[in-house]
């Protein structure tokens, strides 16, 4: 047996480039975080008998879908070497505005949805325009938007939650289709569309090019300003969508919703392999990153770990996960 294996290896080696060893290392390289996710899932399943059930797994994905959707937008922003700190506040702003149009027997459900998406899009366009036209650091612009949008959400709602939402609006966050929660379906859809956008279209190629070397992209004739605006607009749109889902899920428009979601979203992207120095990142990686955070939140809750220890463990586990992943890359 042994010799046979080695013979096979040799044959493969003699083929010009890709040996089986190499293939393994490439797979590890590409899917390292996926393995860490699986390892975490196995660990949690061992520790908690109720963890690995369809119900709970769906539960995890549903809980992460809001942050996951935001993280997908943020990933694309980060690939262009940008950052978006405003997502959480935009969720809140969209939440109160959409909720105020979603009372029963007022407007059809499409109205709050479109208005919500529109508000999200608008914040993104503002971010993108200031960043690309005025050439201000994305960190500052989106930090400004973070503060301003939160203020606007509080102002709009006078600091109060806005309840009494129509059933059709509630369906977005609470309904199921063929047994699958609607937020998961939307999350999957957004992931799919964004994957296509990033990998199969001009837009995607330009996003990577801008992140890879903005100067070179300009010389290659890429309309960098336009694509930057589009990127932030898309992130804003997705924040808007996330805001709608969240509002629908909790049946209330909340000016305090989405606090710190931007950090979770950025963390998901970075855990998933997106580089803050631009040019590198994938949708798949980000979804895995979001799921890792989700599994941690859920698993630690299931295990009834005290809130204090939850924080400590979460910090440590995420760092260790990224560390293990980086080790794997090193070897190859």
């Amino acid at each position, binding site marked *: 047996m042994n010799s046979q294996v080695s013979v096979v290896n040799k044959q493969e080696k003699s083929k010009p480039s890709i040996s089986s060893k190499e293939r393994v290392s*490439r797979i590890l390289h590409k899917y390292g975080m996926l393995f860490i996710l699986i390892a975490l899932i196995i660990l949690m399943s061992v520790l908690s008998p109720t963890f690995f059930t369809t119900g709970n797994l769906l539960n995890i994905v549903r809980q992460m879908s809001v942050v996951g959707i935001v993280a997908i937008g943020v990933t694309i922003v980060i690939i262009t070497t940008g950052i978006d700190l405003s997502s959480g506040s935009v969720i809140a702003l969209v939440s109160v505005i959409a909720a105020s149009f979603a009372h029963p027997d007022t407007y059809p459900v499409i109205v709050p949805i479109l208005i919500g998406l529109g508000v999200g899009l608008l914040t993104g366009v503002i971010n993108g325009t200031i960043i690309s036209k005025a050439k201000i650091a994305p960190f500052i612009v989106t930090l400004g938007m973070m503060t301003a949008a939160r203020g606007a959400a509080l102002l709009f709602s006078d600091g109060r939650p806005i309840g009494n939402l129509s059933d059709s609006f509630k369906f977005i966050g609470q309904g199921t289709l063929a047994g699958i929660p609607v937020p998961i379906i939307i999350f999957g859809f957004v992931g799919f569309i964004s994957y296509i956008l990033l990998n199969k279209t*001009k837009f995607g190629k*330009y996003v990577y090019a801008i992140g890879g*070397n903005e100067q070179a992209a300009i*010389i290659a*004739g890429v309309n960098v300003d336009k694509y930057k605006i589009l990127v932030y607009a898309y992130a804003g749109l997705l924040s808007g969508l996330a805001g709608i889902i969240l509002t629908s899920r909790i049946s209330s428009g909340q000016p305090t919703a989405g606090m710190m979601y931007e950090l979770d979203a950025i963390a998901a992207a970075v855990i998933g392999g997106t580089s803050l120095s631009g040019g590198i990142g994938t949708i798949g990686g980000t979804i895995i990153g979001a799921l890792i955070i989700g599994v941690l939140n859920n698993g630690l809750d299931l295990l009834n770990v005290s809130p204090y220890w939850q924080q400590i463990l979460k910090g440590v586990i995420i760092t260790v996960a990224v560390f293990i992943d980086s080790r794997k890359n090193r070897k190859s």
Partner: protein
Amino acid sequence: MSKDYILEMIDITKEFPGVKALDGVQLKVKKGTVHALMGENGAGKSTLMKILIGIYTPDKGKIIFDGEKLKISTIKQALDKGISMIHQELSPIPNMTVAENIFLGREPSYRFTGWLKTKELEEKTRKLFEKLEIDIDPNAKMSDLSIANTQMVEIAKAISYNSKLIIMDEPTSAITEKEVHHLFNIIRSLKKEGVSIIYITHKMDELEQITDEVTVLRDGKYIGTKPSNQITRDELIQMMVGRELNQIFHKQPAEIKEVALSVKGLTKKGKFENVSFEVRKGEIVGFAGLMGSGRTEVLESIFGITPPDSGEVYINGEKVNIRSTRDAIKYGMGLLTEDRKLTGLFLPLSVQDNMITVTIDQYTKGGFLNEKKIREDCQRLSEQLAIKTPSLQQLIKNLSGGNQQKALIARWLLQDPDILFLDEPTRGIDVGAKSEIYNLIFDLAKKGKAIVVVSSELPEILGLSDRIIVMHEGRKTGELSREEATQERIMELATGELVTTGS
């Protein structure tokens, strides 16, 4: 026997994922000599040198330096042992001064506190520059320097370590004849002081001028070592490419038609003044000049990167106003920039993605990319230009310098522009590929393209151009036809000793 050698590298092997960069390579350098290291792009020259200086650790092999076995794992150790290196890729720290760049890691400072002796730093730099006869302000910011001056700073830096062995990885790829001459003088005096030098180049004439011995690598393997004066060019090329190659290229005549691009009185204050010229379809126009003469600036200005203050540009007889690179590309222009790392490469992306940036529109159908066509076209060009890469999906940062350059040329060839600007197109490219590229340029001309080539290699300019424009300190000092042009005349114009009005 071994005493004669400052360096012996024996049986060095190094593998990267998918690439065996070095396979049992040896290199023996005699004390006080200049040893050339030659080979095609991707042969493994830089990798071998990076092993020597401690950037990579070899998978196998032994290094003996100055009589002892060399065991190092960091660059600092190599520097301390007396080995320094001019790296192939320029790597300045843009926001720091020239002096700070040169003495980085060795700043004169008080012990314990680390308090800097700024005066001494400046003084040391001045002395170094004086000795090397380099004229650069030690307090200038690196980001304000031209590429050529940046290269000179790197050279000065490598020398300033007072090493026993200096590695020079293509030091002349970014500088003009004048500085090359200067560098050679420096090398000769170093040699007199007993310093040994490993010299990597793709330029044949440099081999004859300055080196004593030459070692050739091919595909990561050691081919042989010969005294430089006992080897003919043809033999050397035979060793490098493994087959015979006619390296003398012949200008292929193309039919020169109507004016494609006409530039009148182009001025950008502080950069260049009143530059006028025209390029016809099927014509190759060469730009010659010393470093900093403004050739690059002129091209960048026309191309919309730094729009000019005044002057007119006509394309096919029509006046155009180009304010951005997008405008330029729309008018059918292309520009291969001179600094591939800064303005060309998308380092984190694959070779294929680097090639298609300009032409994505051509590959977009109904909003989606036609990946099959992309793959086919890239494959075709990659074969045509002999780009050495395990696959088109390889990250471009893992390619050798010359192969990166080829990928960038491929980017513009895919676009198939009517007017193509090539700024130092063969920088860092090996002899074989060079003639490939020349042939490509001729083919383009034959197809009726208008081509402008900026090059600091006079033989290249002379061999390629139908007409040669010479610049000096931001002004056009002359225009020579192919027949009129000689190295001497170009140099006279380039140094401003002679000014003719172009025909």
